[in-house]
């Protein structure tokens, strides 16, 4: 029994060394892409996970214009209690939303009775907040049981650098002095209970306190909030959720984490780099397969003449050579994917530690999903077939008389 692929593979085996060298190039290309997508892609999703789960959530809702003036932490751009209720009503009815939490944000002076400094604060409802930012507790310097609320009324959590600079230890009393909306100043005493690590992004250097305390300190009547952070269900599309909410909540602005965190740019760059590496791989495959196939056609002109004379249709001749290019690509792809995945598993097993900015002790756990591997494999095979098309076409257009006369 013969078939087009059997013939293709035997023809490839005819020039073993050349086939091996070309396959090796494809293997290197594929392996490089798998390793790079696996490492960079996992780094990216890990960082996104950390940032969204421990600080900014997936989505945030503010009064229109708030994000543009976020640096001054304005108090006159809060959502009123009625607005918050309306938003809550809408959010409760959305199956794509897992949890949401209100926050009041403001700037204050922090004093330990000896010196004072300015501090930015996120005032939260701890139970709700921890449903949205499930990894918030991991940023606390002291160990914390995630089942417990991270703070109670009367307590504040202070950013690490302020605690260090002012030598404030957990348990120490501190005073927060804040100016409220109409310009009057108010100060209250709290207990500092924990120190929190900084993280990239807006609010990443904030201290935390209870939302009720903040309302008292700022003399806010009713349930005003500055922002609402949202956690979406794992498979929900953020953009779709945003679109849906926008339609129902005019006058408010809704942002995904990508619009809020500078890490989105880094993530974009990582994606761009992955694409670049893929393009390099495609170029390698195209050039090497094209080269081999052109040589193959040139070496087998008389053979092509023979089968053409016998009555093999041009389309069939083309098919023979395309199958050869495809087989060459397949050989390299399979080997490359296997090696690449093996490389990723090795990196995972080595548990390599790294730092990113002020985040320390991160462990790289590269992952690549099957669909990504399939995409890479298909791209290579497509490139191999594409590269084989021109030589194959050339073979199919040969006149049997000329080809047979060729020595």
């Amino acid at each position: 029994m013969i078939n087009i692929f059997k013939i293709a593979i035997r023809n490839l085996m005819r020039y073993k060394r050349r086939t091996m060298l070309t396959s090796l190039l494809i293997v290197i290309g594929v392996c490089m892409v798998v390793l790079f997508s696996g490492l960079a892609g996992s780094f990216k999703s890990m960082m996104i996970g950390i940032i969204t789960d421990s600080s900014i959530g997936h989505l945030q809702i503010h009064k229109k214009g708030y994000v543009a003036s976020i640096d001054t932490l304005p108090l006159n751009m809060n959502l009123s209690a009625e607005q918050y209720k309306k938003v809550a009503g809408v959010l409760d009815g959305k199956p794509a939303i897992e949890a949401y939490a209100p926050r009041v944000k403001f700037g204050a002076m922090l004093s330990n009775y000896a010196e004072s400094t300015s501090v930015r604060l996120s005032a939260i409802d701890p139970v709700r907040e921890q449903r949205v930012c499930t990894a918030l507790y991991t940023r606390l310097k002291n160990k914390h049981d995630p089942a417990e609320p991270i703070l109670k009324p009367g307590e504040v959590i202070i950013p690490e650098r302020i605690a260090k600079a002012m030598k404030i230890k957990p348990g120490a009393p501190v005073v927060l002095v804040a100016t409220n909306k109409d310009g009057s100043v108010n100060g209250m005493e709290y207990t500092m209970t924990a120190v929190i690590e900084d993280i990239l992004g807006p609010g990443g250097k904030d201290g935390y306190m209870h939302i009720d305390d903040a309302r008292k300190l700022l003399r806010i009547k009713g349930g005003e909030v500055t922002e609402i952070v949202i956690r979406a269900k794992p498979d929900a599309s953020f953009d779709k959720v945003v679109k849906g909410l926008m339609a129902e909540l005019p006058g408010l602005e809704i942002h995904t984490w990508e619009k809020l965190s500078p890490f989105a740019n880094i993530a974009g760059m990582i994606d761009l780099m992955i694409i670049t590496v893929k393009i390099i791989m495609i170029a390698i495959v195209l050039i090497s397969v094209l080269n081999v196939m052109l040589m193959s056609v040139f070496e087998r002109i008389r053979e092509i003449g023979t089968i053409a004379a016998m009555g093999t249709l041009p389309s069939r001749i083309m098919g023979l050579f395309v199958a050869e290019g495809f087989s060459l690509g397949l050989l390299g792809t399979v080997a490359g994917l296997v090696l690449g995945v093996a490389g990723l598993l090795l990196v995972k097993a080595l548990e390599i530690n790294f730092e990113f900015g002020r985040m320390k002790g991160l462990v790289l756990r590269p992952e690549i999903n099957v669909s990504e591997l399939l995409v890479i494999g298909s791209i290579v095979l497509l490139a191999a077939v594409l590269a084989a098309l021109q030589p194959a076409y050339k073979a199919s257009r040969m006149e049997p008389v000329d080809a047979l006369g060729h020595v």
Partner: protein
Amino acid sequence: MSLVQLKDISKSYKLGEVEIPALSDVTLDIDKGRLVTFIGPSGSGKTTLLNVIGCMDRPDSGSVTIDSRRIDNLDRKGAARFRGENLGFIFQSFNLIPVLSVFENVEYPLMMIQKTPPAERRERVMRLLEAVGMADQAEKRPDRISGGQRQRVAVARALVTNPRLVLADEPTANLDKKTALDVLDLMRAMRDEFGTTFLFSTHDPRIVEHADVIHGIEDGKLVEHSQFLEGMQSHD
């Protein structure tokens, strides 16, 4: 009615400004079931004539009819189809496909050109390999058998599709005399068994006598072969 009818076939090649006539006004009928040979010196037009009859080259003028079908105006694909369905080819240097075994080489036309079902394929390939005495070498690759054996396999390959006409351009030129005669005997035996018509060219007078019909060819014209044979023999 004759199987092949050539009427006023002319063909010339252009080399720059110069026209080289390869065939001029060839008119010829070939009957079914004959072993027909064209003999002539180098450059006389044998290959050109076989290519025209074999539907691989078009004449400049004149008509070619095979089995009552005009074939001189077929397009590439039509010509390939016609060749695959009606003709068999044997080549001077055997032209077996090196990556295929003897069996697979004979199977090739049934599989890649005609779409014969597998069981029938196997049966026909084995029948032909037995007929040419190569059944016991079926699994070998072409580079493991001798030139004479390769040409036997090529004969089997040309015949496996049961063509009306088999064309062979100098099929014995790469063989020693004894093997050449063997191959000729084989063609005759196949003609007897399958009723196939064979057309072959040669410039070897010793082979010619084994054909049923002999046509001399010189400067692209059919000539009286007997004088021509003597003429050639006197050179020996």
